C-alpha cells in the first residue's frame, strides 16, 4: 500500500512551528517511515510545481503554519487546500493570526512608510517602495502583493483541524500525527488540544485565595514573582482563565504569566473580551478614581489581551463584515 502523503508548509511564519515538528525528535523518523513527506520547504528541497501536478486530494494531510498576508501565501494555502484531504492549522499564527496579527492595528501605508522611509536605519533617497509589478529594461518583475491585513488561515481557506500554540508542544504534535495515521480524528473543526482553561491544570491554582482581590496591576518585569503563587493573586496579569490548556505550562514553569498563545477555549470567540469580566472581578476598587487608577496601570491592553489573536477578535475579524 502506498504511504499517505503529508505536506508541512510555512506561510507567514518565524520557523518556530517547523522547529516544533523537529522537536518530536526520533519519533520524526518513525513518522517519516510511515508517511511520504512531499513538501517541507524549511527542511527539504521540493518544488511547488510538483505539488501542482498532483491530483486533487492526493495529499492526506497538510500541516500549515503561519498567517496569510500576501498573495504568495494565499496562493500556496489555496494550492494545498485543493490537493489535500485534511488541513491542519498549526500554531497560533495559522489558528488566530498570531503575534504578527498585531500589525492589524496599523495600516499597510503606515507599515510601508516606517519600514521603507521613516525607520532610523533606512536610507532610501529615491523613495522606492516594493511594487507587486514593475518594469525594468522592458521586462516585468513581480513580487507577491502585500495585503492590507494579516489573516488567520481559516479566513482564506477551509480548515479541518486546529493545533494552537507558539509553538505547539511536541506531545500535541505527536498526538495530532498519530490521530491522523490511525484515523482516530475528532469531528471536523476540532482543536486538537484539551478543552479546558489553563487554570484547571495550573499548579499554582491551589495557591490562590478564595477571592482574589488586587489593588495594583504589576508587570512581570517590575516585581520578583513568587514561583508558587497564582500570578493574578500577585497582581500580575495572567491570561490563564481565558486561555485553552495544553501548552504544558512552558511559561508558568519559568515564572512567566500566560500570554494566551493557545487561544480561547471551545465556544468562546474572543478570549481577550472574555478575560475582561474575569479581570474586572478581581479589581479591589470602589470609587471612580480608584478604578481609573488601577485600570490605567494596565499597559497596552490590546497588545496584552490579543497578543496572538487580534485578527480573529470581534473588533478585528474581517469575517464579521461579510
Amino acid at each position, binding site marked *: 500500500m502506498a504511504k499517505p502523503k503529508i505536506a508541512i508548509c510555512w506561510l507567514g511564519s518565524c520557523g518556530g512551528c517547523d522547529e516544533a515538528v523537529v522537536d518530536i525528535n526520533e519519533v520524526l523518523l518513525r513518522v517519516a517511515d510511515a508517511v511520504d513527506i512531499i513538501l517541507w520547504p524549511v527542511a527539504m528541497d521540493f518544488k511547488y510545481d510538483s505539488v501542482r501536478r498532483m491530483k486533487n486530494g492526493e495529499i492526506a494531510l497538510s500541516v500549515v503554519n503561519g498567517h496569510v498576508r500576501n498573495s*504568495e501565501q494565499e496562493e500556496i494555502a489555496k494550492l494545498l487546500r485543493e490537493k489535500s484531504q485534511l488541513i491542519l492549522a498549526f500554531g497560533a499564527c495559522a489558528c488566530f493570526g498570531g503575534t504578527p496579527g498585531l500589525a492589524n*492595528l496599523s495600516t499597510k501605508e503606515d507599515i510601508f512608510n516606517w519600514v521603507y522611509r521613516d525607520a532610523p536605519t533606512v536610507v532610501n533617497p529615491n523613495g522606492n517602495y516594493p511594487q507587486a509589478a514593475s518594469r525594468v529594461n522592458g521586462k516585468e518583475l513581480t513580487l507577491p502583493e502585500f495585503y492590507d491585513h494579516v489573516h488567520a488561515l481559516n479566513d482564506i481557506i477551509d480548515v479541518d483541524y486546529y493545533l494552537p500554540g507558539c509553538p505547539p508542544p511536541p506531545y500535541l504534535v505527536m498526538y495530532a500525527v498519530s490521530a491522523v495515521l490511525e484515523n482516530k480524528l475528532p469531528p471536523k473543526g476540532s482543536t486538537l488540544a484539551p478543552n479546558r482553561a489553563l487554570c484547571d491544570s495550573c499548579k499554582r491554582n491551589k495557591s490562590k485565595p478564595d477571592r482574589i482581590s488586587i489593588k495594583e496591576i504589576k508587570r512581570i518585569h517590575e516585581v520578583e514573582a513568587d514561583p508558587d503563587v497564582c500570578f493574578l493573586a500577585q497582581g500580575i496579569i495572567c491570561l490563564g482563565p481565558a486561555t485553552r490548556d495544553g501548552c504544558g505550562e512552558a511559561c508558568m514553569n519559568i515564572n512567566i504569566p500566560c500570554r494566551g498563545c493557545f487561544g480561547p477555549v471551545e465556544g468562546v470567540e474572543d478570549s481577550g473580551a472574555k478575560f475582561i469580566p474575569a479581570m474586572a472581578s478581581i479589581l479591589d476598587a470602589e470609587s471612580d478614581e480608584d478604578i481609573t487608577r488601577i485600570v490605567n496601570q494596565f499597559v497596552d491592553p490590546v497588545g496584552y489581551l490579543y497578543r496572538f489573536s487580534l485578527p480573529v477578535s470581534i*473588533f478585528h475579524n474581517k469575517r464579521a463584515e461579510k
Partner: protein
Amino acid sequence: MSDYEPKVVCFSCKFSWGYLTDEDTLSSKMDNWVPLICTGKIDATHMLDAFRAGADGILILGCPEGDCHYQDGNYEAKKRVYLIRRLLESMGIDKGRIRIVLSADPEGESIPKLVAEMRRDLAKLGPAKKRPVKERKPKEATKGRGGT
C-alpha cells in the same frame, strides 16, 4: 455627515430603570433598548458584539451604588466598563463610546433622554471606527514567487 444618525444600544437594569412603565411604551421612544435583570450580566463580549452589529455607542444604566439586588452586579459592570474603555482607547477608539450611569428612574422617562444625549455626543465623534483599517478581501492570488 449631516444625515448621520449614531446608533446607541442601551442596556438597563429592570430593578431601577423603567419598571413602573410599560416596556412597549418606553421602547417605542428609542431604538435598541435592552432591559435586563442586573447589569452585572453584561459580558464584555456583549458590548463588543453590539459594536460589531453596528452600534456607535453603548449606554449602560445600572442601579445606584450599593443598591444592587444581587449585591454587586452594578459595581462589577462598572469595573468592566472601565476596563473595556481602556481597551478601546488602546485600539484607537474613543472611550466615550461606552458610558455607564448608576442611578434610578422607575418611570423610565429619562432613559430616552439619556440615549438622545449620548447620540448627540456621538454625532460629534462620527461613526464608530469598528476597525482601524478598512477591510478588503484579498484579491485572487496573483502570480507569486513560486513560478508556474
